[in-house]
């Protein structure tokens, strides 16, 4: 098995699925000739031609809307939005159309597309290049939201997303793109959507995270008997997995890099309160970014949850 980073693993998944299924078409800014600004689509235009890897004009709403039309008319488009901050100008297409085409057409048209976009902070990039507003998209009932945390699950989740009958927003944690290398099987395998995984077993506290925060959480809990849950899919949320773990540990900490208020952590905490309150020995803790816009490079380390903040929260809940 090869050691791949996430960029390579995603590239491999795209290449394999394109070879297997000629309905898969990539569409986005700089995805062809340039291979994407992070090189995720590198080599794909050379291999599959410009009809299957389309360099578009600078038009996010156009990319998203076109992908919806392609999906409804028999293709499996993979629109790339160059950074999550630029999904905002495509929001209407995704939210008002892609996510509800199946419902609006009462099942006549589906919208099987995978919207790929790099997300998250810590790469010292300009404004709007480090957004983490996944919760916005989880409010669209017809949209699945998937967030890999490493090369292995990135490949398997992407392949599963590409075969899903409904639209998937696939958030790629930019900070991890080249940070982690893992064994990634050459052949195809699927990582089921809507299933969380236990990233590290433990007995005394459950720590829930996803995407780029998973790496930080695993470092933070090194000295604790903590069970770490990697959500992998944020809509639908695998609360069964979280509840099962909390039933065992009695304590929960949720970590996300998005702002605290109305973050996905709120939904997880609410479900714990509704369905798991009797398992809990003490309050659920959330470690999240403050309720301010994502800052530029000089302040980003004060914005993203730190190892120390995660450890403090774990110590806090362990008091109960």
């Amino acid at each position, binding site marked *: 098995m090869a050691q791949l980073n996430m960029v390579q693993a995603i590239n491999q998944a795209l290449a394999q699925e394109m070879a297997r299924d000629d309905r898969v078409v990539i569409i986005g800014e700089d995805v062809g*000739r340039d291979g994407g600004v992070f090189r995720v689509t590198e080599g794909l235009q050379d291999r599959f031609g410009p009809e299957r890897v389309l360099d578009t*004009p600078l038009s996010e709403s156009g990319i998203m809307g076109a992908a919806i039309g392609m999906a409804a008319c028999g293709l499996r488009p993979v629109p790339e939005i160059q950074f999550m901050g*630029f999904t*905002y*100008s495509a929001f209407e297409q995704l939210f008002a159309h892609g996510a509800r085409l199946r419902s609006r057409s009462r099942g006549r048209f589906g919208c099987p597309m995978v919207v790929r976009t790099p997300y998250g902070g810590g790469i010292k990039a300009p404004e709007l290049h480090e957004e983490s507003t996944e919760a916005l998209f989880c409010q669209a009932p017809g949209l699945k939201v998937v967030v890999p945390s490493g090369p292995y699950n990135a490949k398997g989740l992407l392949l599963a997303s590409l075969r899903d009958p409904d639209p998937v927003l696939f958030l790629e944690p930019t900070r991890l793109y080249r940070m982690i290398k893992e064994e990634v099987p050459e052949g195809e395998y699927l990582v089921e959507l809507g299933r969380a995984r236990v990233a590290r077993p433990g007995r005394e506290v459950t720590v829930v995270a996803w995407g780029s925060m998973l790496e930080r959480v695993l470092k933070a809990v090194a000295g604790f008997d903590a069970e770490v849950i990697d959500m992998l899919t944020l809509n639908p949320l695998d609360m069964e997995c979280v509840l099962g773990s909390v039933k065992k540990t009695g304590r929960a900490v949720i970590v996300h890099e998005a702002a605290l208020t109305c973050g996905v952590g709120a939904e997880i905490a609410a479900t714990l309160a509704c369905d798991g309150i009797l398992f809990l020995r003490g309050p659920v803790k959330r470690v999240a970014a403050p*309720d*301010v816009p994502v800052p530029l*490079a*000089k*302040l980003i380390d004060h914005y993203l949850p730190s190892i120390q903040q995660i450890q403090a929260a774990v110590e806090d809940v362990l008091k109960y």
Partner: protein
Amino acid sequence: MPDTVIATFQVRQLTILDPSGDVDLALLPKLSDDRLWEMYRFMVLTRVFDERAVSLQREGRMGTYPPVKGQEATQVGSAFALTKEDWIFPSFREMGVHLTLGFPIPQLLQYWTGDERAQRIPEQFKIFPFCVAVGSQLPQAVGAALAVRYRREPAAVAVFFGDGATSKGDFHEAMNMAGVYRLPIVFICQNNQWAISVPVKGQTASATLAQKAVGYGFEGIQVDGNDVLAVYAAVSGALEKARRGEGPAMVECLTYRMADHTTADDAGRYRSPEEVEYWRSRDPLLRMERYLESRGRWTPEAAGEVRGWATAAIDQAVREMEEIPPPEPAELFEGALAELTPRQKRQRKER
């Protein structure tokens, strides 16, 4: 007859100073030799700023930076046409406009180190903060033009954007509104022929960008964007018309992005060295130098002095910028709301 031509259009193209340094005397705007020299000085200042910014980035002393190189004539020429009353909506690649208007250089550098405190534009400048989301400044500029007219201000709005931005819906919405309301606004498109790796023919099937204005009911003109005199003439003409209440205009400045898209980009992956070489020979500074030489102003010594002045100014600015203490964590909350929510106040205290 039912099948008749009901509309045709024309697009003007303006060059005053050609690459060899010759000028068209009939078109030459009235500018004293001292003003011309000032233009040249700011073009050099912009070039030196840009070179320094790129090398600071390479040394790890600055963040990702989008070079201006090649676009100095477009930016300095436009800035010379603006008055202190005009509102300016930049994208993120107009450092030459800022420099020409006397924007504090340390603050300009500070922004590109990743310090949002630099986004607070000093009161004396009617300039919006840099806009990173391509094209999204355009409708806001239209709003500013509505406000300027409502308040009877003797001003116009200048909005800057790239060729790539013309593909955004916001471009359409802004141009359309400006036309419908006949607003005092000038759309200044820096067509540097690339949007990262996408050449302008990948943005539009239209022969020029200027002609898009026709569809919105106002004039678009293409100027040689490496000709500072043509840019100045076209932009000042359009701004004066706008200030007189005669409606909007679009000026497409055909120029060239001589450097990579940003310091994080490698343009060698998608464009040929021959193309870059061709445009190097059309460097906007070169032709201004040739012209000023013909007027007896430019000499190698005088050029050396200008470079020396610019280098000293940038050296000083870099020193001042690097003396700025780093932001405190509480800075995160600056301006989040006029009055922070109780939760935000708590979060600030915890930091």
